[in-house]
């Protein structure tokens, strides 16, 4: 089967493995992490056709021929994506295990809603957990990203 990841096609033997397993083990996209394995923590978030999904819950098979975006595909020509840059500017991470997931969820949120309210941000990002507790700066970073357009 084929996986379309970050604009490139990959031929993979996925079997019954999850999208997260195939991305990490076969294709080396290790920015997404397994945090809980049950879709609660969002550390494995990737965008499939622009929507954030938990890579640990989706079978690779289900993602065949759909557009998959991982954190590795976000920067272009060595330039950080604006959301990545605002996460740095606002100090929106600590251990950063969760950060790729938060950034991808933010990218999806801002595509759907260019100027979200704080309540909408909190609602949208509630599926991503940050145990270090960087939430206040994450909210600031999302707002700053939306202002930058």
């Amino acid at each position, binding site marked *: 089967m084929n996986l379309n990841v970050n604009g490139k096609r990959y031929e993979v033997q996925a079997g019954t493995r999850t999208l997260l397993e195939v991305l990490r083990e076969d294709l080396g996209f290790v920015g997404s992490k397994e945090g809980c394995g049950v879709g609660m923590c969002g550390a494995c978030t990737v965008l499939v056709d622009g929507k954030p999904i938990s890579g640990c819950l989706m079978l690779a098979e289900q993602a065949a021929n759909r557009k998959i975006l991982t954190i590795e595909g976000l920067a272009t020509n060595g330039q950080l994506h604006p959301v990545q840059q605002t996460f*740095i500017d606002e100090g929106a991470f600590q251990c950063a295990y969760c950060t790729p997931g938060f950034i991808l969820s933010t990218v999806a949120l801002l595509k759907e809603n260019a100027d979200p309210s704080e*309540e909408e941000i909190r609602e949208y990002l509630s599926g991503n957990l*940050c*145990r270090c507790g960087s939430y*206040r700066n994450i909210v600031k970073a999302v707002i700053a990203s939306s202002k930058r357009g």
Partner: protein
Amino acid sequence: MAIGESIPMLDSVARVTGAVDYMVNLRLPNMLFGKIVRSQSPHAELLKVDATNALHVPGVVAILTGEDLGANAFYGAAIKDQGVVAVDRVRYVGEPIAAIAAESSEAAEQAALLIDIEYEELPSVFEAKEAIQPGAPALHMKFQNNIFKHAKLRHGDMEAAFAEADEIFEDTFTSPVAQQASLEPHVAAAQWDGTRFTIWTAAQAPFTVRKALSEVFDIPPEAIRVIVPPVGGAYGGKGHIRIEPLVAAMARKTNGRPVKFVLSRAEEFVTVTKHAASITLKTGVKRDGTFTARQVTIYWNGGAYADVSPMLVPAGMVRSVGPYRIPAVHVDSYGVYTNLPPAGAYRGAMSSQTTWAYESQMDIIARRMGWDPLEFRMKNLLVSGEHFATGEELQDVHFMECLEAAAKGLDLPRPPLRAERSTRVIEAGRGPKSKRGRGYGVMMKSTLATSKSQARLKLEEDGTVTLYTSTVEMGQGGHTTMAQITSETLGIPLSAIKIIGPDTALTPFDSTTSASRSTSSMGNAVIAACVIMKKRLFDLSAPLLETPINELQTENGFVVANEVSISFADVLRRNDLQTLEESGEYSTSLGIDPETGQGVATPHWHQGAGAAEVEVDTETGRITILRYAAASFAGRVVNPRLAQLQNDGNVIFGLGPALMEEIVYDGGQATNPNLADYAIPSIRDLPEELTSVCIESEKGEMHGIGEMTLPPVAPAIANAIEAAVGVRIKDLPITAEKILRALRERSEQ
């Protein structure tokens, strides 16, 4: 200069691009996959552990069982009671019995199902207070009453002091077992070449790991190399020794092939926990609002093995008294074995439990005696120059400033509610029967009394500097902080500093990255190394610049005199030196008497405070944290942004034990060992408004602030709830159900 600047973490780009090399990403040539086979019984004799069938599974390379272990294969910080895997007997559900190394994780999983284990069940006990009763099953021969540690503090004449009291309050507060729940699990890999180990592990204390492995395998520490990549959260849970002995023992059986273990989320819950605690405070108070005496009795549920508890139980004792002027204090702090997984440090170690107790009782006392809780605290908080219950004189304490700053955070004008706030929130938290209240909490915590940090600086040929440090970067920004301290002290741009470590083969000794000690302890070691390096540079450049040493300075990578300057690289070149290396060390050697608890408990005290404004829905018991303001004493802030992240992070982390976190057991089996049933704070739990500040002092001694604002969270919320609706919760976590039940009980009376 670099200290005091909010520079981003050094590897920020890697952190936002998913490029940080965490342990989970580690792949080594010929690497095998490890899998642990765990006990299904809370307490049993092991009659049989037969790996014959499992060994036949294609892809299985080796299996480790108790039979492989030598007589030394036990570890523990003070009591070596824990086997690398269980030998003869298991003492908790989830205890490792065997381990498998295989070519694939599938093969390892399949083999795990084929290991034949026979148990003969023994009676078990799960609560500390039950485990100390006569007739309770003893877990370890040497400790028939299950008490493996009894720490004592004896200060003043209790009988006389209680006799002076006008009122005596006695209350018991409990905290349940909880889990550190770093998003990165415990991960370790090991390789054995026949004489030497290399261990890669997400751990907070690489030298503790090295020492333990040296003892378990009876080889010199130098034959063990421990490498720690950036860690994806630890919070105490990766302190001490965790899975490394098992992983190393497995690697001894694979003919030199490396083997890696990544724990599942369910395994995390049986690997280390937060001590459940029952804390009884008996406190004598006079009508004038002063204390006469406090007697504290604590039972810490240590789980099945002593682990690091023999150190934490005395620390918890010192941390249980509170930052108040109390003439007579006795504490009995008991570490107790039960048939639960071993407990270890949980962010704000032991203070999370003890602050819950003493700060809750502060409000009980104030309320009953008719005082304002804030004023009652202010009246009794210790100040510099006064003596603590250990007998030591307090220096540089700022409890009042912390509390004032936190309280002030609630008095700031409330921004107007956002117009777009959804109606759902209004319905849930803002019903007509909602009531608001404010509450406060203050904390006082020791760091390690005796510990050592060493740092080595290498000035490279090109004028850049490499700092070798064993401080673990686990999200706190430890490496960035050390770079800033180096930059300022040595006079070199941040961009010219590279950090290496921890790697016990390359980086010098450090006790541990825990107890918020690194900024102070490693920071001072780095300063010492920089001072020596600077002196060397002055000695080497004074003749070149024809300037006396006392007129030289360093700036931006140059040695600078009045009119002339020379770059660090040129100082080396002109002296025919390739590189220059200097080391610095900082250590403290303090402690308290084991019988009386008198002495010096800590090189400095951790200080923090919190203020909460909550709204309680009296129809549902639901709590909304409207505002939370936190303050910690930092001495001198190295990086304000990172400090704010620590302060905020502690408050948010602290909402977990305060409001939701509890491992629920059924017959010793955790019923909620996953992040669906064990909730940790999400962005929706963030207080509507959160503010935090760091207090600095004139003296400017750097303090760590990795924990200070956490312990006040739970009592500040409980106190705010009582202020709002008049009910007192004494057992964590504070759930809507408990509040509703308390409200109903009160209305029935």
